[in-house]
């Protein structure tokens, strides 16, 4: 047995610095709690914010295209963007903990450390091209997430957690199996070497079948996480059960992480131009967008509607993966970058109007009727909410219009006109349920129990987050260009 010896520098730990920062942050919070319990949550919130700040700093300071940790970590443009989105989303989320009303989950310090662990996990997913690490990151993040949902500690929250958890476990099984299949033929778990092997052996039929089979298993696993129909079933229920900000968070960060993985993994297939996988993804995406829109039409609860809408948005973006163009890949990040603010803003609006107990509906916290005549009681929030809705509907000049336009144009450029038309018409369906809320807010007369509704959960931090989100949503036209070029450069740099 020769002694194992290597020098640390070969690990190139700097590549891990962002994740390590979050990890350390998480541990610090734990320790503080051990040393001196029942401190106020504001402390933890600020600590978490700090951590995320530093993480972002570390992230930005990284130079692209380097590997570390036995070459399992890959820092390229995609992973940077992914992590940036994850961290930004988390930073928008954290302040939402400081609400006027007390909620069970935020009273635990563990909540925050768990949260950071989760972020850590997702960062890992984004930053690695090694199936093992991806799997580990995925599970770390997910397991933390299940717990966080459960910590909301209402019956619905528990149900949500269980549903999410069980399906997640099954998805994990599929992921592992898929990985196994791919591993079986390529003999490797690093995506780049998988790509290399597939490259040279792509015309062996015996090779292709397990590869595609693996891809299908992967699609199930990934589809589950980014909630493609029919793997989406957990989404509405979980969103409904979880607290509003958590739901908003789930609609973005885990999906971004998984999107990055999808880009890496299916990128290989697209490179080799394996039509069937492309086909599968496109069909799934179209089905997702359409069906989700239709189901969103008939919801009575705004939160649930937003859940379905986020499914349809995911489907909309998913198409871009199957295009295999730089524009397509970058449009994903652009879209999610804009979607992050708008959607979190919308969920935050729900959060700010959240009561401790349902007073409008025996099951729902945010039925449409709750917002009736909001313009009369609270004009400004009504207008802001309307802005978010219009933005989600893709009405110019609000931010998501640009995302929508960019994705559509990517689709058109790669010649999928039918898909483009379907997607376009889909937003026409979608506009209906967004309008429904606007109609309730602006065109219906107030319900009697109004007054206290709008600001039930008001707090400065919430208003701040909403303000930021609204600002970003409205002023998009001014920053869209630098943002677009920034993303395109990074994505292009990492060879997609």
């Amino acid at each position, binding site marked *: 047995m020769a002694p194992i010896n290597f020098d640390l520098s070969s690990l190139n730990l700097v590549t891990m610095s962002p994740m390590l920062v979050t990890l350390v942050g998480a541990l610090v919070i734990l320790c503080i709690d051990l040393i001196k319990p029942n401190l106020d949550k504001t402390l933890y919130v600020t600590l978490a914010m700090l951590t995320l700040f530093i993480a972002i700093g570390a992230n930005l300071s990284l130079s692209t295209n380097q590997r570390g940790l036995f070459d399992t970590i890959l820092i390229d443009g995609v992973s940077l963007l992914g992590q940036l989105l994850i961290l930004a989303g988390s930073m928008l989320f954290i302040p939402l903990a400081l609400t006027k009303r007390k909620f069970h989950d935020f009273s635990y310090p563990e909540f925050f450390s768990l949260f950071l662990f989760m972020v850590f996990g997702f960062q890992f997913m984004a930053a690695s091209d090694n199936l093992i690490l991806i799997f580990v990151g995925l599970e770390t993040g997910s397991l933390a997430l299940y717990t966080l949902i459960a910590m909301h500690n209402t019956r619905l929250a528990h149900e949500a957690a269980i549903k999410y958890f069980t399906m997640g476990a099954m998805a994990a099984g599929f992921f592992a199996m898929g990985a196994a299949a791919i591993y079986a033929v390529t003999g490797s778990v690093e995506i780049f070497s998988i790509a290399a092997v597939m490259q040279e052996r792509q015309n062996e039929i015996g090779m292709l079948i397990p590869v595609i089979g693996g891809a299908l298993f992967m699609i199930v696993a990934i589809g589950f996480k980014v909630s493609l129909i029919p793997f989406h079933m957990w989404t509405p229920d979980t969103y409904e059960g979880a607290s509003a900000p958590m739901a908003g968070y789930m609609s973005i960060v885990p999906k971004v992480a998984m999107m990055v993985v999808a880009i890496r993994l299916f990128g290989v297939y697209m490179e080799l131009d394996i039509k069937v996988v492309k086909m599968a993804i496109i069909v799934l995406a179209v089905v997702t967008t359409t069906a989700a829109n239709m189901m969103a039409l008939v919801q009575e609860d705004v939160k649930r509607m937003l859940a379905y809408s986020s499914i349809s948005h995911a489907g909309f973006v998913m198409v871009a993966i199957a295009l295999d163009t730089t524009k397509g890949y970058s449009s994903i990040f652009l879209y999610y970058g804009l979607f992050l603010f708008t959607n979190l803003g919308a969920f935050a609006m729900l959060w700010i109007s959240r009561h401790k107990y349902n007073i409008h509906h025996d099951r729902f916290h945010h039925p449409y009727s709750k917002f009736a005549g909001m313009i009369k009681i609270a004009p400004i929030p009504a207008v802001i909410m309307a802005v978010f809705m*219009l933005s989600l509907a893709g*009405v*110019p*000049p609000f931010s998501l*219009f640009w995302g929508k*336009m*960019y994705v*559509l*144009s990517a689709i*058109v*450029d790669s010649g999928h*006109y039918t898909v*483009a*038309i379907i997607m*376009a*018409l889909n*937003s*026409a369906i979608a*506009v*209906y349920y967004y*309008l429904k809320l*606007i*109609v309730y807010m*602006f*065109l219906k007369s107030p319900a009697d129990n109004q007054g206290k509704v709008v600001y039930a959960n008001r707090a400065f931090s919430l208003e701040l987050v909403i303000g930021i989100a609204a600002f970003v949503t409205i002023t998009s*036209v001014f920053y*869209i*260009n630098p943002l*677009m*070029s920034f993303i*395109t450069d990074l994505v292009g740099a990492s060879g997609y």
Partner: protein
Amino acid sequence: MSNILSVLIFFPLIAGVFGFFVNKNSIRVYGIVVAAAEFLLSLWLWMSFDTTDAGMQFVEKISLIPEFGISYYLGVDGISLFIVILSTLMTLLGIVALSIKEDLKNMIITLLFLEVAMIGVFVSLDVILFYIFWEFSLVPMLYIIGAWGGPKKLYAAIKFFIYTFAGSLVMLVGILYLAYIYHATTGVWSFSLTDWYGLLLPTDVQTILFWAFFLGFAIKVPMFPFHTWLPYAHGQAPTVGSVILAAVLLKMGSYGFVRFSLPLFPDASVAFILPIAILAIIMIIYTAMVAYAQKDMKQVIAYSSISHMGVIILGTFAMNVEGISGSIFQMLSHGIVSGALFMLVGVIYDRRHTKLMSEFGGLAKVMPTYATIFVVMTMASVGLPLTIGFIGEYLSLAGFFKVSPIMTILAGTSIIVGAVYMLSVVKKSFFGPLANPENEKLKDLDSKELWALVPLVAIVIWLGVYPKPVLEPIDNSTKALVQLMHKKAQTDKAKKIILVSKDAKEAK
């Protein structure tokens, strides 16, 4: 002032925002003042407009998203100039004639925002900018219909919004495709219309794009069979809503045809003259019949505007200067006339809270001035010479006669069927004995309504007798447009049908 167009766009926007700080008792005056200022600005635009120059004037171009070739690109030519003025005018008169009491503040602010969108649509030369205004114009209208409308207001508002939204989304795909082609051919991204005019597209591509754009415009116009949102929108909208909708918003569609479809896809436009003409004729005759069947005064006007838009479409696809100039002039005249008619219906609605003609009869006795103005507008609407209505209709039909005499004769029945439904409205509401006792005490027009209506009457007569100041710039720009189309046309058929006028040829 070279950036007057920006001023025109942003002045109402800022004024609208400031409007929030004005006390609601004084908001009406504020609205009138702002709208009047805006109107004067647009008049100034006209004064400083060089009528001999056929090209774009007061051009402003600021690169907005160079990455993607989107820029803040404004300009106005004879085709758009007067529609802009029409928008400002109708907004002003609409605010002057406002009769609603509740939430007056919101209404006026919304109207100002709507004005921004309207002007933006007509002056933006960047397609994405155009699209932004185009879509955004839906939002205030949605609010106007939905908040102040009739019993079925929500249905009407949402139908209006989604229907037009769906159409324009297909158009958006078309726009992106065209941009992609431009990028593929020139290697740079650009959404500026003037760049696109340079494109020579293969005919099959033109066909696809033509129909993509067609859907967007046709629903807005609205062309049969996409017209059913209109009666609801008009039927439910408050008076000012209908006025603006009929006067300006519908023109966006027909303007789109002139500005986009014709010059961008000349061959396709020529190739599809037949189906479109058939649709237009259906619009003219069929909707006229539907209008005749109505019991509600306002619905008659609503359907009549579809019928008139049919004439406009026909003129647009005449592919010669007479027809296109005529259709553009007809846009103005229809804007003025139908706007006025909707105001008049609003007047009676304010007094009686019904629009059913069966409720009226013999109104001419109690409301002579009202009746007189209504008759004047009726005559303008049926295209009587020396009123504004004749010139546009005559030129459009004359233009299309060159393309197809038979279809023109069919379309020409509009002067008959139009007379049928309009005169029956006049007969049912104004003539006959004063049967309904509720009508005996009706007041004639008050000063507010006169202030709104008399200018329109004046314009109807003025432009009917002496259209030159308006028709000349339109004509110049149209000549340039037709020349461009003729230059771009590839198929011999198109070359043959697109008819450059003689003196334009000499000009070359």
